[in-house]
């Protein structure tokens, strides 16, 4: 394993020290591994909390700031954070209007956020709602599984709900909005390589030079199926087809197309993928009105990409365009 680290056991803690030093606009509680907007709680505003395992950077801490999240909890690499962290963060971002938990749909995350909500209810009088994000169409038969994973949809959900929260909307309105954006989103990912969890020290799985995994998540896990290495053109088809088969994306103001890099894939290739994806959407009569290309939800040093499509209506488009100032997404301020 070749990585920039000291003791793998200290990776998350030391990286959070770096986040703290690099971002005076954030505040880090190292004991609880919570990263806050420096000015949290924002009085009168619903607090937005997310988080999850580490190794997905810029998710999650890269999306804290005006117009997006108020805090995130960081877990160990690929391991959900724990209820105590979440309860502590919930308490500290409650500006009097309640707190919305934006939960990525993984068994561990859901259970830990559930317990956190129970804790918060027992210990404080903060009103908490939770919305689970589950956009990954690679997970079929979701009745017989842990349900669809939360992947790329988190970015539009957190951005759009973040903008609406700044407008002073209520907790239940924001929860509805989060569900709406999530329902409007579908994703599918693929891997050229696995990734190396530092504590393990070797790649999670082996992938021969001439094979790729289709339908992966964001934890270096194997995907739904293994196929021979294919051209970007064919890979785009393998990602876009199941997304479009799962939901109608025509109509509205058009869509947000998000081509996400899994960590080790150069932007040069991601833009080439975007070209292929856009051509397929074009053929399907779907109109990309906003675009995001780059590594936003990564899986350590995995090479590969995912495609997320979010249908935008007029309101969602305006909220997407509203100002945001985070380390990972910034415009208008």
């Amino acid at each position, binding site marked *: 394993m070749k990585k920039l680290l000291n003791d793998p056991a200290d990776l998350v803690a030391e990286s959070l020290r770096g986040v703290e030093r690099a971002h005076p606009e954030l505040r880090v509680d190292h004991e609880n591994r919570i990263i806050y907007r420096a000015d949290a709680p924002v009085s009168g505003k619903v607090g937005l909390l997310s988080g999850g*395992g580490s190794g997905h950077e810029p998710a999650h801490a890269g999306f804290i700031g005006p117009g997006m999240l108020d805090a995130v909890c960081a*877990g*160990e*690499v*690929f*391991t*959900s*954070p*724990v*209820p*105590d962290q979440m309860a502590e963060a919930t308490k500290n971002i409650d500006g009097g209007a309640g707190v919305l938990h934006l939960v990525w749909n*993984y*068994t*561990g995350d859901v*259970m*830990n956020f*559930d*317990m956190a909500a129970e804790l918060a209810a027992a210990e404080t009088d903060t009103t908490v709602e939770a919305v689970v994000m589950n956009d990954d169409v*690679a*997970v*079929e*038969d979701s009745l*017989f*599984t*842990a349900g669809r*994973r939360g992947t790329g949809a988190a970015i539009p959900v957190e951005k759009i709900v973040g903008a609406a929260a700044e407008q002073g909307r209520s907790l239940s309105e924001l929860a509805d909005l989060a569900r709406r954006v999530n329902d409007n989103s579908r994703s599918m990912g693929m891997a050229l390589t696995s990734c190396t*969890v530092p*504590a*393990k020290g070797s790649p*999670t*799985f082996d992938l021969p030079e001439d094979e790729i995994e289709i339908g992966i*998540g964001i*934890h*270096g*896990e*194997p995907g*739904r*199926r293994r196929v021979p290495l294919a051209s970007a053109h064919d890979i785009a088809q393998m990602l876009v087809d199941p997304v479009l088969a799962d939901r109608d994306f025509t109509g509205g103001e058009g869509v947000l197309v998000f081509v996400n890099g899994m960590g080790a894939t150069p932007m040069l290739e991601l833009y080439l993928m975007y070209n292929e994806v856009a051509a397929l959407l074009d053929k399907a009569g779907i109109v990309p009105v906003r675009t995001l290309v780059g590594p936003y939800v990564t899986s350590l040093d995995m090479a590969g990409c995912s495609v997320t499509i979010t249908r935008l209506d007029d309101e969602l488009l305006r909220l997407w365009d509203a100002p945001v100032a985070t380390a990972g997404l910034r415009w208008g301020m």
Partner: protein
Amino acid sequence: MAGVDNDTLQRWLRAFAASVAEQKDALTALDAAIGDADHGANMDRGMAAVVAFLDATPPADPAALFKQTGMTLVKSVGGASGPLYGTLFLRMAPATGGAGALEPDVFAKALRAGLDGVVARGKAELGDKTMVDALAPALDALDAALAAGEPLAEALRAASDAADRGRDETTPMLARKGRASYLGERSIGHQDPGATSAALLLAAAASVVADQEAA
């Protein structure tokens, strides 16, 4: 015997911690095949934290011991296994009825309460390829052996054997819960990591109770 005393229960947790530490890489390797390669690290982090509080301030009775173990696991593990193992111990605490030493049937009932907590939290059914597939047959075997009048040590041995069998039987199963479920058919042929750590938990119990009786 006068039931499983607080010392033996602490030895149980220490023995479990020791075997998790020893099997850490093996548990992680199982999780790499059908999950995200962290089950060994997760369980080891949690059980090391349990051993740390045992060293520092050993709780006075089994209820306090289980409660603190559960809280420690919930606080330090994360992932799916943190809430599940945490809930298991948290639910065992009240089931002890405040006893200083647990009679065999009380110990068995406490474990059953723990399993019920795991199922309530995780909604897994038998055959979903989870820790439940080791825990449930183990507790059934424990109850049956105790009902047949066997001493606790023997009954726990039977439970541990049943956990091992349950663990082995996860291999051909198709996962329906947790991360492994994302793999669909590809989860078949791999042993479940959580069932594997659960089998270690039962083996540790069987071993320390046998030692207590031998002593």
